[in-house]
């Protein structure tokens, strides 16, 4: 059964199509990534699924409930971690969690129990009675993930879960996310503009640009679209080498740049030993160095949109400024 079903969802803000007719399906227990630059429409999509804003048109179902007609049922079945912290800093970590539980209809006793459990998962037990204003950014994010679990939602929405965190804390958050998904079977949708995050965490990734999904598949397949791996080889006597490389049946595309060759191949790691078996004396060239590069989602984004994600973010903010100017007039 599909945990989330989105059909042709559209959201227009001031004449700008922030989300422009997207459709996708998330299976139960899946970890689904929405990857795209800032302003691509990821957060807007998430907010529509969480019933925080109303779609302009289109349909969406979460756990079988219509986000337009069954608001409270949707809300009870989801947990949400916002991009910016949404904690009360004058309350302790424990109080934030217990209050959340009671707002979601748990008894005080149940709320206390679940709070204890959730604090354990994110390893914040020893800080639980400190005011949240004393927490670091990473601790706040962990507390929010814990809070989103208190009412045991079937689906968890994470909006840029590691934005602004240092590398070490990011790793730790990733581990919690994986653990929740694998051990507890929570369906997770996360948005991110970090390539490696989408790649590492997601079972499937939807690449979203200008409010549209440009590609959707498992990360491996997305990267295979590019035609496999790239092996770069530096050689002496490139003329002789070229003859040999051209005859190799598994090279899909060969490019030469002086003494450097770029071989586009599938399963590059299995091809390197084959290259090493070439008899150098007989062939009349010598390999100086070999480098195998796996394509990243960055390459995939570039392939589908013609721009790197960073370039796109710069142009995106330009676009918003233009809109804002027009609107003011």
């Amino acid at each position, binding site marked *: 059964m599909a945990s989330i079903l989105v059909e042709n969802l559209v959201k227009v803000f001031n004449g700008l199509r922030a989300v422009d007719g997207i459709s996708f399906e998330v299976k139960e227990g899946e970890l689904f990534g929405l990857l795209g630059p800032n302003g691509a429409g990821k957060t807007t999509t998430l907010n529509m699924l*969480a*019933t*925080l804003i109303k779609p302009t048109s289109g349909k969406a179902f979460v756990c079988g409930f219509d986000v337009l007609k069954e*608001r*409270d*049922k949707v*809300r*009870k079945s989801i947990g*949400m971690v*916002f991009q*910016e*912290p*949404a*904690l*009360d*800093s*004058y*309350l302790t970590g424990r*109080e934030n969690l217990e*209050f*959340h539980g*009671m*707002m*979601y*209809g748990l008894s005080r006793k149940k709320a206390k129990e679940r709070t204890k459990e959730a604090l354990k998962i994110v390893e914040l037990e020893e800080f639980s009675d400190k*005011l949240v204003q004393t927490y670091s950014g990473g601790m706040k994010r962990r507390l929010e993930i814990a*809070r989103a679990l208190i009412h045991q939602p079937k689906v968890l929405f994470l909006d840029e879960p590691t934005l602004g965190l240092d590398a070490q804390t990011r790793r730790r958050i990733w581990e919690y996310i994986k653990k929740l998904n694998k051990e507890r079977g929570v369906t997770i949708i996360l948005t991110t503009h970090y390539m490696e995050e989408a790649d590492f965490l997601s079972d499937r990734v939807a690449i979203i640009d200008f409010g549209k999904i440009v590609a959707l598949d498992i990360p491996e397949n997305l990267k295979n679209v590019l035609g496999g791996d790239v092996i770069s080889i530096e050689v002496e006597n490139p003329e002789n080498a070229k003859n040999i490389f051209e005859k190799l049946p598994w090279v899909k595309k060969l490019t030469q740049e002086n003494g450097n060759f770029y071989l586009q191949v599938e399963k590059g790691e299995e091809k390197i030993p084959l290259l090493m078996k070439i008899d150098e004396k007989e062939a009349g060239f010598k390999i100086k160095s070999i480098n195998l590069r796996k394509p990243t989602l960055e390459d995939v984004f570039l392939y589908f949109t013609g721009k790197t994600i960073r370039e796109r973010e710069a142009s995106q903010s330009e676009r918003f400024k233009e809109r804002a100017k027009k609107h003011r007039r």
Partner: protein
Amino acid sequence: MEINFIAIYVLWLREMKRFLRSWSRVVSALMMPLFFLIFLGFGFKGAFIPGVGETKNYIHFLVPGIIGMTLITTSMMAGISVLWDREFGFLKEITVAPVSRISIVLGRILGGMTTSLIQAILILLISMIMGFKLPNFLSFLFSIIVMILISSGFIGLGLIFASLMKDIQGFGLIMQMVVFPLFFLSGALFPLSNLPKFLRIISYFDPLTYGVEGLRRTLLGNSFFPFWFSFSSLVLFSILMIILGAYFFEKSEI
């Protein structure tokens, strides 16, 4: 639109915890009314002011006015404090919960009302040290009801402002341009009968006028308007503000 009592309780409890943990804020909110009470109260102790009443001296006349002042400032603050929740993101956590907005508004009003009332009663206690005498128990009970009406009305008004404002920049402006004029026009510091006619007519449109009048009637036993008139005006004001506050809060974006 169902009312969720547990959610109301949780939001009320949150206000209580925050209140008890921020004593500096409480003290600073009470400073202004305390200064007015102490300096005007002692300063005009023997002065004859027409309309104040013959047997009572000025301090008795002043106390209900200062309680009105305490209520309007703390209640408006409680209503507008939604802005801080929006600024620090907590509003999102509340709005994504499976709870109707009316429950959120009611929780907020109850929480704000409790803290306002505590502060008003603190002022009343201090004025008793200064020589103010409490009326009989029944009148005192009525004065509490009047306080509740003043407080809920102004929390509603604060909510309206908070829902219409985008950020906390305008907060100081509201306090200066709304709270102070309403306070001075209400006749909290002097008898309304002493005002020139056109100012007095404006003061009839000030809800705090009826609040202070209601407090004077219940705490002192004399007032400019009959009690039923101030009381029903206050009830009307309070209900209207709660409904409008809930309406604007419902419509505001997170």
